[in-house]
């Protein structure tokens, strides 16, 4: 047997998407369902348009969501938690820029039983002052610890430089922000944004017909209405006039490095092709940044480049933590790699590796109902149908070195990028 001969491989020609069923609750709440798999589990995700984009003061969306765990008019925080926990159910609460999300993970056999309790949390949360004080104290303590981490501080400085403090994507938390959180502000935000006209539901896992019926009975009532969030709110971007920001930390042995610039988001027709370029540049283990700065130079444990896309904007973000003595050398190499993308087209072979890797990733991102529901959520937020996935595969597989060369010159310009270092 000749081990030097590479086994033949097949390219992914099309993707077999799990079926998506769409329905509406009686009160109009859109519901997406992905029903497949062997394990008797279900994930029910409720997305309210109640993210940071919609808050007046910093932390209001975050704390409104956080306080949902702290009790209702009839149950204490402990009683709520006991009831979910006893049934093996796990409820996760999170807030992004656009949505605030409440997700129930449960054995399918217990899920329907948990829904009335979840409804109570979403409609009758009590926002007790005592619990709020405790959570604020804990979050202050946590912020103190985070501020000692170079990567955390670098990220604050980086998004601040890109967007400024008036924009949700750039705003960071200061200790004074905690003083402005009041029970009343949270209650108002809750009333305004947590209701059926501001909600969509994604269900995934293995479940029978009764689940939708129960969800409709519990969440589909007409007494849970409100005004949908105003999607026309806009904020001014106040980018820093200075491109280089360094914070010296004498005791650090490493420096956190962040480099990048404002860019396009998923709404833009170039986005899919640009993400191929970004993957090749710094988006996977075999990328040019990893090959040069980790595998050849040994400057870092890892270096990555991402295209961050949010509904109202996007940016390129290159990040790493490197030995302090090679801080400047790392910046130099990042610039060198960007200029290389701009000056010469990538080889067909290198591009083919990236195409195949990304196609495999797309296959992984639709594998199983739970995993696919995350991909589906990403599509729904941008108003895209599942057809987009097939188009994306096609775009990824057909993009040429010449197109990437042109995109590199349009979107990657090291001389105009912010360079933020801490350490």
């Amino acid at each position: 047997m000749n081990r030097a001969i590479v086994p033949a491989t097949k390219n992914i020609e099309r993707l077999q998407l799990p079926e998506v069923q769409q329905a509406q609750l009686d009160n109009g709440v859109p519901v997406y369902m992905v029903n497949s798999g062997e394990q008797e589990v279900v994930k029910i995700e409720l997305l309210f348009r109640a993210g940071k984009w919609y808050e007046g003061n910093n932390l209001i969306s975050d704390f409104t969501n956080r306080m949902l765990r702290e009790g209702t008019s009839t149950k204490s925080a402990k009683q709520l938690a006991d009831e979910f926990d006893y049934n093996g159910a796990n409820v996760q609460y999170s807030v992004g820029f656009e949505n605030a999300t409440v997700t129930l993970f449960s054995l399918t056999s217990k899920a329907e039983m948990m829904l009335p309790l979840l409804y109570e949390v979403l409609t009758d949360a009590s926002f007790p002052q005592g619990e709020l004080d405790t959570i604020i104290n804990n979050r202050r303590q946590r912020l103190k610890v985070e501020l000692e981490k170079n990567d955390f501080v670098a990220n604050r400085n980086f998004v601040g430089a890109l967007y400024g403090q008036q924009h949700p994507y750039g705003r960071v938390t200061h200790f004074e922000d905690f003083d402005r959180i009041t029970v009343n502000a949270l209650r108002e935000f809750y009333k305004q944004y947590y209701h059926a006209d501001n909600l969509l539901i994604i269900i995934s896992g293995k479940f029978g017909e009764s689940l939708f019926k129960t969800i409709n009975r519990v969440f589909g009532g007409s007494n849970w209405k409100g005004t949908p969030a105003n999607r026309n709110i806009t904020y001014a971007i106040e980018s820093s006039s200075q491109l280089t920001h360094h914070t010296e930390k004498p005791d650090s042995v490493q420096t956190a490095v962040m480099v990048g610039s404002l860019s396009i988001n998923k709404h833009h027709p170039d986005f899919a092709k640009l993400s191929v370029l970004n993957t090749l540049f710094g988006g996977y283990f075999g990328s040019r940044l990893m090959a040069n700065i980790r595998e050849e130079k040994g400057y870092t444990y890892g270096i990555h480049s991402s295209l961050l896309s949010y509904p109202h904007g996007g940016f390129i973000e290159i990040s790493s933590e490197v030995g302090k003595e090679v801080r400047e050398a790392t910046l130099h190499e990042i610039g060198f790699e960007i200029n290389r993308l701009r000056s010469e087209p990538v080889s067909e072979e290198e591009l083919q590796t990236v195409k195949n890797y990304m196609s495999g990733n797309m296959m992984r991102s639709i594998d199983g109902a739970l995993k696919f529901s995350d991909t589906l959520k990403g599509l729904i937020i941008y108003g895209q149908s599942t057809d987009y996935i097939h188009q994306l595969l096609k775009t990824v597989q057909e993009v040429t070195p010449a197109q990437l060369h042109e995109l590199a010159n349009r979107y990657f310009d090291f001389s105009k990028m912010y360079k933020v270092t801490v350490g």
Partner: protein
Amino acid sequence: MIHFEEFVLSNGLKVIVHPDFSTSMAAVNMLYKVGSRDEDPSQTGFAHLFEHFMFEGSVNIPHFDGPLQRAGGENNAFTSNDITNYYDILPSNNLETAFWLESDRMLSLAFEEESLETQKSVVMEEFKEHYINQPYGDVWHKMSALAYKVHPYHWPVIGLTLEHIEKVKMRSAKDFFFKYYRPNNAVLVVAGNVQTTEVRQLAEKWFGEIPAGERWERNIPQEPEQTERRLLEVHADVPVNAIYMAYKMCARTHPDYYATDLLRDILSTGDSSRLYNALVKEKKLFSSIAAYTTETVDNGLLMVEGKLNKDVTMQAAEKAVEEVLAEIASHGVEQRELEKVQNKIESYIAFGETNVLNRAMNLAYHEMLGNASDVNLEIKKYKSVTTQAIRETASRVFRKENANVIYYYSKN
């Protein structure tokens, strides 16, 4: 229930196949039975450094990642105290690529000086990133040394010092490889959209001719019973005081493991757990608190760690934790509270099993512990734990003389 078939090649390689035709992927998981506990005390961190080296080219293939990525695959690895685990996940019709790659690096590595030197730098940066340049980053170094005086769990997986990694020589890498990275010291699991006959044929083709390694006896000095409480005080440049309390507990394969793990859940899993409610919510002594177990093949640790609120003394914090632990040791728990954590575990395992790679890793891990089929007994074992067992375990584990405590003071 995870269905699987198994066979052993003549060189001793154990192969487990778990077909699942609902996915179009294949997961290939290779577990080598070697971890940081097998290291020479003068060369700690070696097993993990070696894991990095395994990606730096084998005898016929210059670099591991490229061909796998070209086959649409993704891969990674991790090293623990007990094992080194490698996995590849790729479209199932490209399964052979993973066999080609994994078998070539089991056959022999390229052993290039230059790549060893680079990986030493990469690992030293990893060491700095996670254990030096991080508030409380050195606590695991300190706790391992405090709790283990004889057993090699005395040092953490990353290694004791940067110098140990810096001075590694190629000679040691070769010896290590030909002792531990042999087919008779590995478990291969192939899961997903695969047929057993196909896997058997591929396994024979690619791994069949790799020679078995010499037999060797694992001879690890076991930690003697601890007889008095140990306390270490640390003063460091961190923003808030923290306390770490580690109690010796049984090994992963011991029958008491399940009661101990549930005890940990009672203390710290979910918003209804005891430590959080008593000490963060009611007494407001801590801003955060958690408990976890190290889940090791030899005797492990059950660790409670918390960050103290302003003006709370270490002594008061420790006493308050001890009270919560003593309450279980003396009064036990109600049936309902036990059922709660048993239900949580059942649900946790069910969600874990939605992922084919997870199933593959679990099969490999249980095979390493003794028997792959034990993976299907886990829920039953957790469910057969009684309130009496919880109470007995608590009184055995939470003894003062079994505790290793670190007062981690903020200098600021």
